[in-house]
């Protein structure tokens, strides 16, 4: 009870505070903060002899000196941004339809339809794409059958395939914040703008987008994070051509046992995501806390 009568029972309030604070601190310190400190320490040392390590920036130097690594890094970032943009563009009309055009049963039906694919795991969805796109898969066969291509084409293992997979996987996380942002936009604002002589484009630009900005940013941040941190889709759909930075991290940790290098890569990825999220927030003038509440 947040009433002031609790002031007489101050020890009670303190006890309560401590009890509530304990799990939060355990979680945040034990699973988030300290592990990242550990990761930071790992990334800042280098092996000089078996079981002998010293503080060094060697891991980061490797990253800079080996074009492969930073190429992958940049590529991952660009592809993620591209995937986020494509997702946004694809999701917006649907979110608009659900939030503003559909009514009653239709609306909830469309909404649930959007949710359904995400009740099954990414593995399953990726499996679906593999069955669809592989050389012996459904789409290439269909193209042959339609006479559009002479022989089955391999549709897996292209950048475009990775993009399709990423967009697909992220769609829900864009659609939902968009819907809730658009739903909170009072129809009468649009009517008023229209009544005052606005047309579709100017209303979109001046009324809808400013209003939905927190939702858009929320969706973009979540999608960007998911894409950037994705491992499954790029490796499975990208095949021999996938170069995703998470894969580098995995490789360093698991196949090379090089935790130091992997930790450095992890930190770089974290830095990248933080920087881009921060830039996104800055550009759109949103606050992180508020944005995340909406997603």
């Amino acid at each position: 009870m947040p009433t002031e009568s609790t002031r007489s029972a101050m020890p009670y309030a303190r006890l309560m505070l401590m009890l509530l604070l304990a799990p939060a601190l355990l979680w945040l310190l034990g699973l988030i903060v300290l592990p990242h400190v550990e990761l930071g320490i790992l990334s800042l040392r280098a092996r000089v002899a078996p079981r002998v390590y010293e503080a060094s920036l060697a891991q980061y130097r490797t990253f800079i000196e080996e074009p492969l690594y930073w190429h992958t890094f940049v590529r991952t970032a660009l592809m993620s941004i591209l995937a986020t943009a494509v997702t946004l563009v694809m999701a917006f009309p649907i979110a608009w339809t659900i939030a503003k055009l559909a009514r009653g049963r239709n609306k909830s039906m469309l909404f649930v339809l959007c949710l359904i694919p995400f009740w099954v795991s990414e593995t399953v969805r990726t499996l679906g794409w593999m069955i669809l796109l592989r050389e012996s898969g459904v789409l290439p066969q269909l193209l042959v059958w339609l006479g559009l291509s002479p022989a089955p084409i391999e549709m897996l293992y292209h950048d475009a395939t990775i993009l399709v997979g990423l967009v697909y996987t992220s769609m829900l996380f864009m659609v939902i914040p968009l819907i809730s942002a658009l739903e909170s936009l009072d129809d009468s604002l649009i009517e008023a703008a229209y009544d005052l002589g606005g047309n579709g484009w100017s209303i979109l630009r001046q009324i809808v987008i400013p209003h939905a900005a927190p939702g858009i940013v929320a969706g973009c941040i979540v999608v960007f994070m998911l894409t950037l941190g994705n491992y499954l889709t790029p490796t499975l759909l990208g095949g021999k051509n996938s170069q995703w930075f998470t894969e580098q991290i995995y490789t360093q940790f698991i196949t090379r046992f090089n935790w130091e290098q992997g930790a450095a890569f992890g930190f770089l990825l974290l830095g990248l995501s933080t920087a881009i999220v921060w830039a996104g927030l800055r550009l759109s003038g949103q606050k992180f806390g508020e944005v995340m509440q909406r997603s």
Partner: protein
Amino acid sequence: QEKTLRLLTWADYAPADVVAQFEKESGYKVELTLSNNEEMISKLRATGGAGFDLAQPSQDRITGPQQEFGIYKSMDLSKLKAELFIPSMLEATKKNTTLGGKVYGLPHIWGTDGLVVNTSLTKMADYPDLCRGDVKGKTAVRLKRPTLLAFAFASGKDPFALYSNPKAYGALMDDVGKTMIACKGNLKFFWDNKDQLLNGMRTGEIVGAMMWDTGGWKLNGEKAEIQFIAPKSGALGWIDTFAIPAKGKNDAAAYAWINFNLRPEIAARVAKSAGNFTASQGADQLMDAKLKAQFAASFPEAALKNVKWYPAVPAGIEEIEGRVLDRIKAAN
């Protein structure tokens, strides 16, 4: 707890009937975890050598990680029946897995890496044939160190000789890397799971690949035109071992399993399941005749002599290779 043996091994190295027999005879219960070299090492690294009672890494991958992470216990040879091993193989393995005077691994199963070719569709003699223009998009290799070593041998160099000279080794690997990058367009994929490759070969999507002998013989059993070929520049020979993780809790069970496995009749069954030969003295007499025939077909005398056995990998070498592998992966 003391009643279980937690075994970290390769697929097919512990067939169900063998496990059942062991459990019945020894009273230990076997918990299997299937893995490959890298994962074995990284798991043991992450657990500090805990979580398993017995592991089966390849003999060349023992001393390096042991030096680095201390994930194995030294073997107590007194608990083993040395007479069960083929002596030459035991000696060779001991030599490769000895660190600071202690032995860390004992041989179990051995085999080679070479070429698997669908002879009805194409002909191949050496690794570089995988990069020929007429098989574009129909070949595969693993994106792992054996591939680099194979192509290094194919280029006429001896990479093992350069293990002690990281610089020269690095230069050699750079060259191999360039070759591979040039070849990349020819490859359908980098396989990293044998079933994936076998499926490709079965459907004819793949006509030639670098692979270990077992897979080739397995396919040969299904389709005679698919054959395992020892390449001109030499097949690569490997030996998978028994090694005891540093924090294994049930060494007794581990030794029991090793002794059990080296009994010729057991070894023969395991060898059949894995499709390879074992280090068990006398097991080859009990081996499947077909497998022996396949072996003989793949390895004429000269080829057998030409097998390049992996020496122990010194620390630091894998890092050089890793970067080259990454580069190959990244190239377009």
